């Protein structure tokens, strides 16, 4: 009887952890990714679009430019 209780508690805990992890992953996958008002939408940057990024940098050459690189978490 006591063993069954322990098994149920452990199974419940594992289920809780799995559900929490799943919810977290789902949130990361499907959470909205909208930029603040007044900004263009979030752009993808990769090897193919690096030239476009460079053009955007040069198009603003009459201004000071600040470049920031961050990890999102």
């Amino acid at each position, binding site marked *: 009887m006591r063993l069954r209780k322990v098994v149920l508690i452990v199974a419940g805990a594992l289920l809780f952890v799995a559900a929490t992890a799943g919810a977290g992953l789902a949130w990361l996958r499907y959470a909205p990714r909208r930029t603040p008002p007044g900004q263009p939408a*979030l752009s993808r*940057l*990769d090897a193919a679009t690096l030239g476009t990024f460079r053009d955007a940098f040069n198009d603003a*050459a009459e201004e*000071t430019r*600040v470049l920031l690189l961050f990890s999102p978490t």
Partner: protein
Amino acid sequence: MRGASAVQEILTARPELAVRVFVVWEPVIPTDVAPPTSKTLARFHDRRARQYWDRDRALSADVVRSILAAPDRYGLRDQVDADTIVWDTVAVFPAGARWENEFPVPSFYGFPVVQSSQGLAAALQPPGTAMLAIDGPLRLEATSWGRWKPSS
């Protein structure tokens, strides 16, 4: 993330500044499995900002390539290698600077960003303008580029 908030505070305090801000988010640590959420993107709410998701760290790789090709040009001999990831880093480029074949040399850069905010604020001052309301000593010197290496 405190670095992002620090930069936004500087921008908020300087609405008249003619500046374009490029914010590049890239995966570095194991929890960076997806692009930044709206909440993260909202840390930079300034209209002068443009935000990017660089899943493959293409920009970091290009910066490292440029530095390794001519380390003395950037004053970074022996500080960057092929495994370097440029992150939590801020760089300032004056008006007129252009990015041609090689990454341009910044007039200021710092890492980590939260510790470089005073230097950033000073770098954004027009020449000959006094710095107002600054706490502590100015940090105008360049620090090392952000770097992170996976353990082997």
